């Protein structure tokens, strides 16, 4: 049984769906960040798979840049989260609405 590009794309779709479920279900902002990491990783898998099956290195390059962006996102996001937690004592998403729309 040969593993083709479709297998990897299906896997990537499943992981992306899991990440989206996490984003919609979670209230805690730290858990939301975890779900964001899952989304970025699922996209990286499909980039690497397409790069392999088309014999092109561009997909791997994009995966590297996605990893760099994920790392900087975590640094800035956690800094902001720590500041918010110092001031308000919680990181719940529902308590962050100041405009009461």
């Amino acid at each position, binding site marked *: 049984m040969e593993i083709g590009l479709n297998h990897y794309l299906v896997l990537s779709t499943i992981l992306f769906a899991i*990440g989206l*479920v996490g984003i*919609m279900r979670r209230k805690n902002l730290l858990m939301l960040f975890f*779900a964001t990491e899952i989304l970025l990783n699922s996209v*990286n898998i499909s980039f*690497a798979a397409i790069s*392999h099956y088309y014999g*092109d290195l561009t997909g791997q390059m994009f995966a590297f840049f996605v990893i760099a962006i994920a*790392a900087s996102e975590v640094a800035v996001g956690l800094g902001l989260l720590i500041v918010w937690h110092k001031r308000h004592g919680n990181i719940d998403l529902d308590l962050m609405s100041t405009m009461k729309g």
Partner: protein
Amino acid sequence: MFEAIAFYMFAFLTIAMFYIAVTTSQALYALTALASGMIFISAFYFILGADFLGAVQIVVYSGAVLALYAFGMMFFDTTRDIKEKQGNRYVVIGLSVLSALLVVVIFVTPLISSNITALYPIAEGVGNTQQVGMVLFTKYLVPFEVAAIMLLVAMVAGIVLAGKKMDLSLTLMSDAEIRTIKEEKTKKVLS
């Protein structure tokens, strides 16, 4: 055959780990499940022949990003259970699956419809790390440098945001105390 066994095993493990990371109510379980999921994902990169990407995945995600998360979790109250949105779970799951499928279709349709050719074909007889280096430092040099500057900016932002007033706890102080500190600061700036 061997590849198929490895693929299905790691696919099952990755999906299980990420499912735990998304559904568990304990923050520490979510963190450890996410860490193991990241390591299992690097296995796919090794299967696909992207050795350097797999190594970077282990170093950056399991090393740096998850260490940062573990560090950040020390600031937050992680012992209590996490509250979750009480919505209709079928609607949530249905919408997620639908949008994930939509995203994949949007990105894959151009691949199938147009007969694309490799822009930077994989050279013969060179290791993956060498190929990555050759492409990264010729065609993608400017994005590489921009990414370096972006990481520097993120590092400075992290230090400025998290390192400010590390010696005093802003949660334990009352609003009046915080206000006096602020006023002292503005006085210092004005004088």
